[in-house]
């Protein structure tokens, strides 16, 4: 049985048959998929926070994938963005967008590496969100503000956060130095 409760992915792809194919692959991985068939709709949806991950083609009508990755990263920095292109060479601006994205794939796509990348990015983002939530709880308890300021709330902080929780007394909170 296939369940689509892993999360919701925004797929911005103007080629209908490519969109159907990628949608099918992602559904098999347990995601639900919302397809936007042009850059304008894609950009509007990407700016909202309701999607767990964004996949966008670079060559799209109206707005290009470059704008979508830029806006998405500006407004939802922890949400992964994966860019797709069928071009073998990238312009300077496309290369910058590719560097800003969390992953970049050249079509034709291969199912296994593509799905592996999506699953990895999604799991990684969940970990980061969980760390951020821990820090928020920590801040509410009166000790996390310092820890958060030290940490920068990045996914590399799982160990330091655990360390703080284990050894700090909330009433006399002093963050350890790391």
């Amino acid at each position, binding site marked *: 049985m296939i369940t689509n409760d892993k999360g919701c992915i925004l797929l911005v792809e103007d*080629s209908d048959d*490519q969109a159907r*194919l990628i949608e*099918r692959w992602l559904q098999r991985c347990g995601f639900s998929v919302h397809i936007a068939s042009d850059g304008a709709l894609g950009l509007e949806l990407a700016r909202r926070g309701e999607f767990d991950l964004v996949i966008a083609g670079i*060559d799209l009508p109206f707005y290009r994938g470059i704008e979508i990755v830029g806006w998405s990263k500006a407004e939802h920095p922890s949400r992964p963005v994966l860019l797709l292109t*069928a071009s073998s060479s990238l312009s300077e601006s496309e290369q910058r967008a590719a560097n800003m994205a969390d992953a970049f794939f050249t*079509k*034709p*796509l291969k199912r296994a590496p593509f799905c592996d990348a999506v699953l990895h990015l999604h799991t990684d983002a969940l970990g980061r969100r969980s760390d951020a939530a821990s820090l928020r709880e920590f801040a509410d308890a009166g000790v996390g503000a310092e820890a958060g300021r030290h940490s920068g709330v990045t996914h590399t902080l799982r160990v330091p956060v655990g360390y703080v929780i284990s050894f700090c007394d909330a009433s006399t909170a002093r963050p350890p130095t790391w």
Partner: protein
Amino acid sequence: MWTLTELRVSVDPDIIDLVPAFLGARELDASAIEGHLSAGTYAPIVRIAHRMKGGGGSYGFPVISAIGLELERAAHSCDARRMADSLMRLRTYLASVKEALSAPPVQTAETK
């Protein structure tokens, strides 16, 4: 003509129901390319070819990606003869695949 190796496709069973629509869309692409070629409007051919290049291999039809690449290059250089050649290759390939798909499945050592 196509060699047996070129005609061999490897389609993921999970997407087999999507293949007829994919091949049907390529037939529509062929008609659109023919129209643009007659009209001498090559920019839309670049876009169609670019999509074919990206889509064919993902569906398990690498020959369609290869024809898309040839066609895109020919359209970029406004080479009508090469575009017409690529269009012919696309049509014969699609016809061969259609024929192969409508034929009864061949028993191989693995399926026996």
